[in-house]
C-alpha cells in the first residue's frame, strides 16, 4: 500500500479513534445491555466450559452458567435498566444461550475467552466486547481500502467512507458488544472488497488477471465463513453470482483486443473458463444448500401480505429500521428524540438526490469514470439492493420489524453511496472540506447520542 505521510497519519488516527470509541462504548454500556448479549456470551462460555457446541437441551438444562449470568444481570440492575421492572425469580428463556446461530463467531469468542475463564464474569464479558471492538476497527480499515480501491485519485473522499463507518453511533454500539454482527459485517465487507478488487484488476491483456485462484478461494472462504457466522451475510452469495456477468462483460470486450492471451495460450484460456465453471458450481451449490429460503420467500407472494393494514405496518417497521440503523441503543429501548431522526432523514434524502445527479452524469458520460469503476459502483449498488431485499423480505415474511444492524453487512457500500450523494451538494472548490464536515457532523451525532441519551438512560 503506497500512502503519503499525511494519508498514513490520517488513517492511523482514524483506526486509533475507532478503537478508542469502541472501548469507550463498551465501558459505558452497562453489562448485558446490548441486544442478545446474555445469549451470545453463554454460547461462547459454554464452548469454553464443555468443549462442545450447546444444543437446545443444553441451553435449557445448563444451570451453573445460567445462575452466574442471572446473578450478574441482577447485580448490574439489568431488568430495571432494560424494562423498568423487577428481576424475575430465574433467568428467562429468551436470555439463555443463543443456540440457533451459526458457530464461527462463538468459536473465535471461545478462543479469546479461554485464557480468562477463571476471571470475574463481567471481566469475561468485557474481554469478548473488546474482541468485537477489534473486529469493528478492522471493518473501518476495510472501508478505507475499499474507498481507496474505488477512487484512487480522490484522496479527500477516501477519508469520508471510513469516517462514516467509524463514527456511526449504532455501528460503534453494536461492535462494542458481544454479538456475531461484528464478525458477519467484517467478513461481508471483506467479500465486497475482494469482489471490487477482482473487478478492478479485471482480465487484462497480460497473463495477470483479477480472477486468480487466490482471489476465488478468498471470496469463497469469505462467503462460507460469513454463512457460518450469521445468516445476514447471505446477500453476499447472489452478489458474488451477479458480479460474474459484470466481470464477463469486461472479459468480452477485452477478448476482441488483438493482444488477447486467449488465442496464444489455449490451456490458460481453458483454465480461466474452468475457474468460472467452478465459481458458478460453488454458488449454485450454495444456493441449493439454502433449501429453506425458496419456500420461505414464496410467502412474499401471498396477497394478504400486501393488504392496506400490512402496508401501514411495514411503513412503521421501516421507520424502526431507519432509526435503529443510525441510533437506537440498548435493547432498542434507548432511541433519540424524533427531531434527530427527522434531520437524519433529510440528510439521507439529500444523499439520495445527490446520487441521482451523480448517476445522471455517469450515464451521460460526463463523469470521468473508468469502465471498471462503473462496474464496481454497480456491484456496490447491487450489494445495497440485495441487503435491502434480504432485510425487508424478512420483514414481510416474518411480519416483524427488522433492526437496522441487519443492514451493516453492506455498511461499506451504504457509506460509499451516502458520502458520494452528500458530496454532490458541495461546490467543487470546497470538496476538500467535505470529509472534515462529515467527521464533525458525525461527531456531533455521536456525542449527543452518548452524552444526552445513553448516559442519562443507563446512569440518570
Amino acid at each position, binding site marked *: 500500500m503506497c500512502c503519503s505521510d*499525511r494519508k498514513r*497519519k*490520517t488513517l492511523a*488516527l*482514524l483506526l*486509533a*479513534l475507532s478503537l*478508542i*470509541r469502541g*472501548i*469507550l462504548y463498551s*465501558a*459505558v454500556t452497562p*453489562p448485558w445491555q446490548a441486544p442478545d448479549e446474555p445469549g451470545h456470551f453463554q454460547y461462547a462460555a459454554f464452548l469454553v466450559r464443555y468443549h462442545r457446541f450447546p444444543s437446545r437441551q443444553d441451553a435449557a438444562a445448563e444451570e451453573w452458567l445460567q445462575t452466574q449470568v442471572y446473578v450478574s444481570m441482577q*447485580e*448490574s440492575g439489568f431488568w*430495571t*435498566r432494560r424494562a*423498568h*421492572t*423487577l428481576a424475575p425469580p430465574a433467568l428467562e428463556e429468551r436470555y439463555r444461550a443463543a443456540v440457533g446461530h451459526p458457530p464461527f463467531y462463538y468459536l473465535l469468542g471461545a478462543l479469546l475467552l479461554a485464557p480468562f475463564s477463571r*476471571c*470475574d464474569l*463481567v*471481566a469475561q464479558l*468485557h474481554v469478548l466486547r473488546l474482541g468485537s471492538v477489534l473486529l469493528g476497527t478492522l471493518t473501518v480499515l476495510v472501508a478505507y481500502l475499499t474507498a481507496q480501491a474505488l477512487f484512487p485519485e480522490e484522496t*479527500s473522499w477516501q*477519508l469520508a467512507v471510513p469516517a462514516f463507518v467509524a463514527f456511526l453511533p449504532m455501528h460503534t454500539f453494536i461492535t462494542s458488544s458481544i454479538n456475531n454482527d461484528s464478525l458477519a459485517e467484517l467478513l461481508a465487507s471483506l467479500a465486497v472488497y475482494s469482489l471490487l478488487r477482482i473487478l478492478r484488476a479485471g482480465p487484462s491483456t497480460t497473463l495477470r488477471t483479477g480472477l486468480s485462484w487466490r482471489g476465488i478461494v478468498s471470496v469463497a472462504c469469505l462467503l462460507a465463513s460469513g454463512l457460518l457466522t450469521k445468516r445476514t451475510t447471505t446477500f453476499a452469495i447472489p452478489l458474488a453470482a451477479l458480479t460474474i456477468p459484470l466481470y464477463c462483460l469486461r472479459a468480452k470486450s477485452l477478448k476482441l483486443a488483438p493482444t488477447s492471451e486467449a488465442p496464444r495460450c489455449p490451456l490458460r484460456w481453458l483454465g480461466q473458463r474452468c475457474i468460472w465453471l467452478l465459481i458458478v458450481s460453488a454458488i449454485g451449490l450454495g444456493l441449493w444448500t439454502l433449501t429453506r429460503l425458496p419456500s420461505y420467500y414464496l410467502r412474499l407472494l401471498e396477497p394478504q401480505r400486501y393488504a392496506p393494514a400490512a402496508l401501514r405496518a411495514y411503513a*412503521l417497521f421501516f*421507520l424502526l429500521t431507519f432509526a435503529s440503523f443510525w441510533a437506537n441503543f440498548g435493547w432498542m*429501548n434507548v*432511541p*433519540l*428524540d*424524533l427531531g434527530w431522526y427527522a434531520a437524519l432523514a433529510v440528510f439521507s434524502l439529500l444523499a439520495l438526490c445527490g446520487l441521482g445527479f451523480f448517476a445522471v452524469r455517469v450515464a451521460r458520460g460526463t463523469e470521468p469514470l473508468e469502465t471498471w469503476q462503473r462496474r464496481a459502483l454497480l456491484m456496490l449498488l447491487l450489494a445495497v439492493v440485495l441487503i435491502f431485499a434480504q432485510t425487508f423480505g424478512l420483514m414481510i415474511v416474518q411480519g416483524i420489524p427488522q433492526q437496522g444492524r441487519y443492514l451493516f453487512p453492506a455498511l461499506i457500500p451504504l457509506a460509499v453511496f451516502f458520502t458520494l450523494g452528500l458530496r454532490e451538494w458541495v461546490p467543487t472548490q470546497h470538496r*476538500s*472540506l467535505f*470529509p*472534515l464536515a462529515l*467527521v*464533525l457532523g458525525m*461527531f456531533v451525532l455521536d*456525542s*449527543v447520542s452518548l*452524552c*444526552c441519551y445513553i*448516559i*442519562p438512560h443507563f*446512569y*440518570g
Partner: protein
Amino acid sequence: MHKPKGTHWLLGWATITIFLALLSLAILERQDLSPTSQPLFNEMVEFHGPLKVGQSFVASRPGLCRVALLLARKGRTNRSPVVFHLKEGAEATADLATVTINASHLEDVTTMVRRPYVYQSFSFSPIPDSAGKTFYFWVESPQSPADDPLSVRYQAGDVYPEGAMSTDGSTIDGDLAFRAYYTKGFFGNTALLLERLVEHRPFPWGSKAFYIAIFVVYLALFAGLVWSAFPTPTRDP
C-alpha cells in the same frame, strides 16, 4: 508541499482538544443525574378533574431543584394544563413550589412513532436545606375531562420504602416512578456518573481513572484527526 512547523501542529491540536473538551463538558453539565429515584413501573394510574396523584420521598442531598415523572396522555386531543405541587411532607398546608405545564408536551401512548418513557421535568427554585427531609409532590389536571384523562406510571407494591404513593389523599400500595434532582454542578454530576460507572465492575473497568483516560485520549485523537484532515493551502496544495 511545505510541512507545517511542529509547534504550529501542536498549537492547532491543543486548541481543538481544549475546544472539544469544553464542548463535551458543557454537554455533560446539562445532563443532570438523579441521586434519588424510583425507576420501576408496571401500572398506570389516571387523573383528571379533581383527582390528584402524589408521592412522598426523602431528599438525599441539599439543593432539591427538580422532580421528573413519567406522565402520559392517550391521543393528541388533551391540551389541558398539568399542575405539579411540592410541599414539605404530606401534612404541610403551604406549597413550596407549583409548576404548570401543558399536556401537549406529554408522551402520547397511542402512537408507535414516539420516544417512549420520557420523564417530564418540573423545575423550581432550589431548596438549600433539603437533605434528609421528607417531601410530598402531587399532580393534577383540573381541566382534563373524564373521557380524556392523563396518566402517570407507577410500580405496584412497596418498592420505595422511604415514601408512599397516594391518590386523592389516600395512600395506596405502590410507588410512582420519579427522579429527584439537586443543584450539584458539573463536578457533582461527574463524580456521581463515575461512581455509577465503576459499580460492580472488575479492574480496570472498576477504576474511575480508566474512564477519564479513555475520554481524554478520545478527545486528543479526535482533535488530531480534525487537524490532520483540515486542508490548508500550505498543507494540502
